[in-house]
């Protein structure tokens, strides 16, 4: 993966984070679909694996996942300054919009049109989430690493059957990852002896 950092300026980073946050409805991990589209596909500032890794870290730390992911992206691109810029850019749109909404809450809440717009946006957000996760799955399958595909299949089955807390899944993945690493090192050492 080649990075394309020509357009990377502090101002542009701020604006990109701001727009992503401004247009993310439905909260939670739906933001990742926008972040993935913006930072990986559109801008090419972050590669797809990094994005997932940063999302994993963001999910396993306290706070809002999307803010955490954008802090990680910002730090990766422009260090501490980038982290601050991205945190601010992600937090600013909700702050402004909430303050406005609070004033018009009664009107908005009883307004059918708002409800209809939100209902349609949720369907679109579900579709975007589906698109991003299926693309990622296809990338994974293309790597043709049977072990990783088996890990995915197990994780998927566990998610579908038990619907556990994401932190638990990440913790389990970490343990499996470390065991796999130990196994690889062991195999390599044995290969060297022979």
């Amino acid at each position, binding site marked *: 993966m080649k990075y394309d950092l020509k357009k990377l300026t502090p101002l542009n980073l701020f604006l990109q984070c701001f727009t992503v946050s*401004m*247009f*993310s*409805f439905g*909260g*939670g991990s739906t933001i990742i679909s926008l972040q993935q589209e*913006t930072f990986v596909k559109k801008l090419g500032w972050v590669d797809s694996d*990094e994005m*997932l*890794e940063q999302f994993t*870290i963001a999910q*396993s*730390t*306290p*706070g*809002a996942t*999307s*803010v955490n992911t954008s*802090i*990680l992206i910002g*730090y*990766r691109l422009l260090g501490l300054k980038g*982290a601050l810029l991205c945190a601010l850019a*992600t937090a600013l*749109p*909700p*702050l402004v*919009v*909430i303050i406005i*909404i609070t004033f018009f809450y009664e009107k908005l809440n009883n307004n059918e049109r708002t409800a209809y*717009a*939100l209902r*349609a*946006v949720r369907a*679109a957000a*579900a*579709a975007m*989430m589906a*698109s*991003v*996760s*299926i*693309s990622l799955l296809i990338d*994974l399958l293309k790597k043709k690493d049977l072990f*990783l595909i088996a890990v*995915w299949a197990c*994780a*998927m089955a566990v*998610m*579908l059957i038990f*619907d556990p*807390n*994401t932190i638990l899944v*990440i913790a389990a*993945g*970490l343990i*499996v*990852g470390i065991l*796999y*690493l130990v196994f690889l090192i062991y195999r390599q050492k044995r290969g060297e002896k022979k």
Partner: protein
Amino acid sequence: MIYPDLLVTFMLIGVMTFGGGYSILPLVEELAIDQHQWLTTSELADIISISEMSPGPFSLNCSTFVGMKVAGFPGAAVATFGFLLLPFLIVLVLAYFYNKYRGLSYVKTVFSVLNSCIIAVLLHTAIKLFSSSVPGLSLSAGKPDFLAWGIFAASFLAMFKWKVNPLFIIFAAAVLGMILYPVII
């Protein structure tokens, strides 16, 4: 002076909210409603619908809204700042180590396994979102929500196949919903 109290409370809420989203609600209920009585339980429903209505992360929206209710605009700013502060510092430390060590092949191996798990988590979220927002809706008793199905299918194709800008998809969906739902419902 309510601000120091507000700041400390939201710092606590921030550091204890794992996984974002709705996981903040029990904490708000316990600290802001039971302990400080800044809000009443019936206002919790308002918090949820306002936070859903506005863009950005749900948990952050919650903090801003509670701060706003408690102490107006400065309250909103203090609560938001408090909520972000500790996670920011924690993530910063992790970001430092991540960038320092991510090139190591050992770390890469572990992350490749973690990434496989996260793809399952994301797909599962997509399924949950889909089932709550498309087949879960109906126009009137027993009639499926054709518009939600249509918007889902069109958005999926637009993004997956035609690489349309997601911001445009969201905007178009909002406009379509506003115009078409009143006609078909």
